[in-house]
C-alpha cells in the first residue's frame, strides 16, 4: 500500500492551484474550484468523525449551520471582522460538540445516526421559532440574516484552498498517529479496543470535536460567501447527505477519498444540475447503490487495497 504517490500528487496539485488564479483562470472556474475545495473540506470533516470510527453522523450539518449563524450574528450585530467571526463559529461548534458528543457517542450504530439527525433538526427548528416564541429579533427566524458584502471570489478560493489543505493534512496526520489507530480500532472492534486500553469514548469525542470545529469554520466561510443565510439553507439535511455520499464514493476512512469523491460529484453536479436537475439526483442514487454493491470501499479504497468487503 504505497502512500507516497497520492501524497506527492496532492502536494503538486495544491502548489499548481496556488498560482493558477494568476494565469488567467476564468471567474467561473475560480468559483467552481472554491466550491470544490469547500466540499472537500466538509466531506473531510465528516470523514474524520464517521469514516474513521464507523459512527455514521447524520447531523453533521448542525455544526455547519451553527458556524454559519455565529459568524453571521457576530458580523452583523457585533461588527466583528470576518476571519475572527468564522474562527469563533468554528470554536462555538467545537464547544457544542462536547456536550452533544459525550452522550450520543455512547450510542451504537443506528441510534447515533438518529440522535445526531435529531440534534441538527432541533437546531433548525429552534432557530426558526426562537424569535417568534420569545418575541425578540435576534435570529430572524425563517427570514434569515443578510451579511455584509464580501470580497471577490479569489478570496474564497484561497480560504477554501487553505481549509482543504488543513482538513486533508489533519486527516493524514491522524491516520498515521496513535490516535488514528485508536479510531480505526473502534471501527473494527470497539470492545476489543476498549479492552486493549484505548479510551474509546475520549478518542471518539476528540474526533467529533475536530470535525465539528472545521465544519463550523466552513459554515462561517460559506455564510460570508453567500451573504445570505436562513435556517432552511444552512441546516439542510441534504448537505449532510452530500458529505456522506462524497466520502462513500471516494472511500470512507481514507485520506484522499474525500478529495476524489467531492471533486467528482461537484463537477457532475455542475455539468448536470442546470439542465437536468432531477437526473443529477437520480444518478447520485444509482451511484450510491452501485458503489455499495460493487465497490464498497470507494474509488480510493478499492485502488489501494484490493480486498473485498469484510463480512461479519
Amino acid at each position, binding site marked *: 500500500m504505497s502512500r507516497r504517490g497520492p501524497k506527492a500528487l496532492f502536494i503538486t496539485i495544491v502548489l499548481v492551484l496556488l498560482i493558477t488564479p494568476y494565469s488567467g483562470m476564468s471567474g467561473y472556474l475560480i468559483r467552481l474550484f472554491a466550491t470544490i475545495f469547500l466540499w472537500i473540506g466538509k466531506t473531510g470533516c465528516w470523514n474524520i468523525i464517521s469514516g474513521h470510527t464507523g459512527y455514521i453522523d447524520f447531523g453533521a450539518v448542525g455544526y455547519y449551520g451553527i458556524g454559519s449563524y455565529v459568524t453571521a450574528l457576530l458580523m452583523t450585530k457585533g461588527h466583528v471582522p470576518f476571519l475572527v467571526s468564522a474562527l469563533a463559529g468554528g470554536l462555538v461548534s467545537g464547544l457544542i460538540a462536547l456536550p452533544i458528543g459525550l452522550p*450520543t457517542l455512547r450510542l451504537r450504530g*443506528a441510534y447515533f445516526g*438518529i*440522535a445526531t439527525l435529531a440534534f441538527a433538526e432541533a437546531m433548525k427548528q429552534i432557530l426558526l*421559532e426562537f424569535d417568534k416564541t420569545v418575541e425578540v429579533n435576534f435570529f430572524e427566524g425563517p427570514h434569515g440574516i443578510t451579511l455584509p458584502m464580501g470580497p471577490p471570489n479569489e478570496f474564497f478560493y484561497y480560504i477554501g484552498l487553505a481549509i482543504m489543505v488543513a482538513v486533508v493534512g489533519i486527516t493524514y496526520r491522524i491516520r498515521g498517529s496513535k490516535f488514528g489507530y485508536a479510531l480505526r480500532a473502534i471501527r473494527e472492534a470497539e470492545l476489543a479496543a476498549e479492552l486493549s486500553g484505548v479510551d474509546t469514548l475520549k478518542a471518539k469525542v476528540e474526533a467529533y470535536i475536530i470535525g465539528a470545529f472545521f465544519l463550523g469554520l466552513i459554515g462561517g466561510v460559506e455564510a460570508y460567501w453567500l451573504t445570505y443565510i436562513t435556517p432552511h439553507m444552512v441546516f439542510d*439535511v441534504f448537505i449532510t447527505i452530500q458529505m456522506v455520499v462524497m466520502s462513500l464514493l471516494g472511500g470512507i476512512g481514507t485520506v484522499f477519498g474525500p478529495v476524489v469523491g467531492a471533486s467528482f460529484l461537484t463537477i457532475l453536479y455542475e455539468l448536470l444540475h442546470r439542465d437536468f436537475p*432531477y437526473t443529477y439526483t437520480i444518478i447520485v442514487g444509482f451511484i*450510491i447503490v452501485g458503489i*455499495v454493491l460493487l465497490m464498497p470501499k470507494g474509488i480510493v479504497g478499492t485502488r489501494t487495497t484490493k480486498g473485498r468487503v469484510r463480512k461479519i
Partner: protein
Amino acid sequence: MLLFLQSLLNGILLGGIYASYSAGFSLIFGVMGVVNIFHGEMVMLGAFITYWMFTLFHIDPFLTIPFSALSLFIFGYLVQRFVINRVVEAPPMISYILTFGFHLIIAYTALWVWTADFRTVTTGYSGLNADIGGIIIPYARFVTFVLALIVVAGLYLLLNRSEVGRAIQATAQDKEMARLMGVNIHRIYAITFGMGAAITGIAGSMLSTYFIVFPQMGLPYTIIAFCVVVLGGMGYIPGALWGGMILGVVQSLTATYLSAGLSGAFTFILLFIMLIVRPAGIVGKGIVE
C-alpha cells in the same frame, strides 16, 4: 377543558396515523437490522397508488388499500430479494447508505414523472366530522386510527401464530440457528420486507385522504417513523402504537398551548433525550445494539 380534551384526542388520532406508517419500519429494523431510509417513499407510493386509482377510475380510497398493499408487497419483496439481501451481512451502515440511494432514486424519479404538484384526494366524506358533546372527530382520521390498531394487532398475531411468523421471529433472534433449522433466511428477509412495505403502503393510502400527496413527501415520514420507533422501542411492533401516541399527544399539546412551530423542535428534543436516557423505548422492550 374542552380544548384540552380536543387536543388530547387530536394527538391520539395523529398518533394512530404515526403508528400506522411506523410499524413497518419497526418490523424491518427488528428482523434485519436495516434502517430503511426510503421508508417514507413507500408511504408516498401507497398514497400515489390511491391518488391515481381515485382520480382515473373514481375508486373509493379505502377500496384501493388491497391494491396498494399488494403492489408494495411485491416491490418490497423484490428490493430485499435482489438488492438488500446482498449486503445484509455487511456492517449496518452499508444498509442505510444503500437504502438512502434508493430514497434518492425513488423520490426523484417520482418528481420527474409526476412533477412537484401538490395533489389531494377529496372524497364526499373528506371534511366530515362526528361531533360528540363539542368534541370533533374527523371520520377519515378515526378510520385510520382503527385500521392502525387492526394492522398492528394483525401483524402481532401473524408473527406469533403463523408458521411464517415464527420463522421470521426465529430469524430475528438468531439467524444462524434459524438457518440450521431449515429456514431459508433470504426468503424470510424478502417476505418480511414485503410485509413491512405492504403495511406502509396501506398507511399511505389511508392518509392520502387528508394529507397532501406529492413526490417529495417521503423524508419527513421517514424521520417521524424513526422517532416513533425509537420512542416505542426499535423492533418491538406494539411499541409503534406507544411511540405514535406519545409523539402525537406531545405534538398536539405543544401546538395548542405553546406554538405550532415549536412542536417540531419538541419532537427532536424528545427523541434526543429518549435515545440518551432510554434507548430501549418507553416500555423498554426494544432492541439495543
